[in-house]
């Protein structure tokens, strides 16, 4: 049975409850994301989306529940997981070049006693090319715009050659050109059989370009194929009574 799980579900979450400080931020959440899906996590501010992603990658310890990735606990499958944190949480004054950050992604598969080789450099270069940053490879990261920063983080994740990608708001403050560049990369990852989970605020984009969606607000409201999840009823239950589909789309646009 575990064999079957391993092949069909990239992320399985059971009864996940997370308490931060004194409040329950994620409550009793069950979730199964099949392998090879482009999955959006949608919910209002403070819904616990970031917390959910952090709990998946074991950065936050839940009070109860368990997370399995590709059928195994995160500690076992961490090599298969690429986590892209929210851009704003990082120290962009750190003295490194764009290429250095992309190279960090290759450390995953490299035993710690081995030096970086040709293969790692090629992987980093390919990842930078995929996000359209090969020209900026020697630029210090402190001189990047927000959208470029986001693409560097994506390149680092690509260089990891993971199976499951978890991205926290990769489109925050990103212009239309960068957005479609990032979106193209994500779609092509999906086409290569990777599972991609993205925290996203733009409902129109989710409806158009994603296959799978999770609506949550502390609790899970709905999950499944986008067409069955993004319904006025579900949105009302996620965002409160007065917000309709169009309002949301416009507000984020």
């Amino acid at each position, binding site marked *: 049975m575990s064999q079957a799980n391993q092949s069909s579900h990239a992320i399985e979450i059971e009864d996940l409850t997370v308490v931060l*400080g004194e409040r329950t931020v994620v409550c009793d959440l069950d979730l199964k994301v099949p392998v090879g899906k482009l999955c959006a996590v949608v919910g209002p501010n403070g819904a616990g989306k970031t917390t959910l992603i*952090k709990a998946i*990658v*074991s*950065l936050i310890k839940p009070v109860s529940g368990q997370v399995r990735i590709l059928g195994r606990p995160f500690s076992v499958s*961490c*090599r298969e*997981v690429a*986590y892209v*944190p929210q851009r704003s*949480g*990082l*120290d962009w004054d*750190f*003295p*490194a*070049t764009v290429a*250095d*950050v992309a190279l*960090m992604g290759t*450390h*995953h598969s*490299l035993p*710690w*006693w081995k030096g970086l080789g040709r293969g790692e450099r090629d992987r980093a270069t390919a990842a930078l090319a995929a996000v359209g940053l090969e020209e900026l490879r020697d630029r*210090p990261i402190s001189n990047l715009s927000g959208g470029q920063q986001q693409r560097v983080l994506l390149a680092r994740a690509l260089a990891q050659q993971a199976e499951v990608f978890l991205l926290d708001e990769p489109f925050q403050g990103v212009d239309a050109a960068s957005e479609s560049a990032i979106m193209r990369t994500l779609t092509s990852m999906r086409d290569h059989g990777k599972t991609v989970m993205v925290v996203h605020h733009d409902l129109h984009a989710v409806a158009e370009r994603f296959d799978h969606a999770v609506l949550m607000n502390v609790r899970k409201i709905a999950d499944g194929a986008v067409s069955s999840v993004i319904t006025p009823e579900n949105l009302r239950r996620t965002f409160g009574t007065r917000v309709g589909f169009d309002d949301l789309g416009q507000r984020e646009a």
Partner: protein
Amino acid sequence: MPDPAVMTGCILAGVLYGLLGSFCMARNQALLGDVISHAAWPGLVLALGLTGSRHFGVLGVGAALVGFMALISLEYLGKGSTRIKPDTRLALVLSGFFAAGMLFTRQVQTSRPGSMGHLHSFLFGQTAALVWMDTAVMATVLIPTMILVWLRWRDLSALCFDPQWRQTTPHANGATPAILNGLLVIGIVAGLPVAGVVLVSALLVCLPVTARSLTNRFSSGILVAMGLGATLGALSPLVVMLTESIFRHWRGNDDARLPTGPVFVLLGVTCSGLSLGLKNMRQRKIQRMGRNHASC
């Protein structure tokens, strides 16, 4: 010539603080060194009060132990609610430990009269009194630090840039940052004879600041900081000797020897100021060129 033990001690201190300081600065913990050195003070005083020994081997152990306690209390304050910001946490621990140190000082002053002079040399440093033993301590901290950085370089650079992401990588364990912090505590205690509680952390800051404005990469920045530390370390006893002979020449044979520790710090801070100034000048020049270019 300056005393070779003093010279070696200063060079080793420069290299060590260039290395450790680069990590402190990259992790936005430039004040961590200050906290540890001030926390080492009650440790020194307690060790002296309890044992009566004046041997740095004994006092240093006390200082290191209390330094570790400061580190643990920082960790503890950081747990749970994140409402206490890192700088507030540092300020809290620094002042708490130093205040305790001042109380102990008064006690020791009465219970062991005559020991204050000795303690003072740790408060402000007494580089001229460095012996080979002190330099040996410095070397025994420097070597494992270099080995750790060499072996865990990728892990450590990830720790500085993106500590949360690092925790999701397969090689991340809690040991590496803990060992680095431990070496920082021991390194600071080892440096107390050179620059003293008050100034030791200045070395931890000014070397990487200079390096940072000269380079764009972490690895080269560390090498520059270490090299600069060695250079200034070698230079400061020479400066002291030179000024001494100048003073002697001018004002007769009075004892006008400058303290080496503050000279070292002053040279370092001057380098930071100059390098930042140079960087600003270069930027302004480029901007001016850009303006001229735009106008034609």
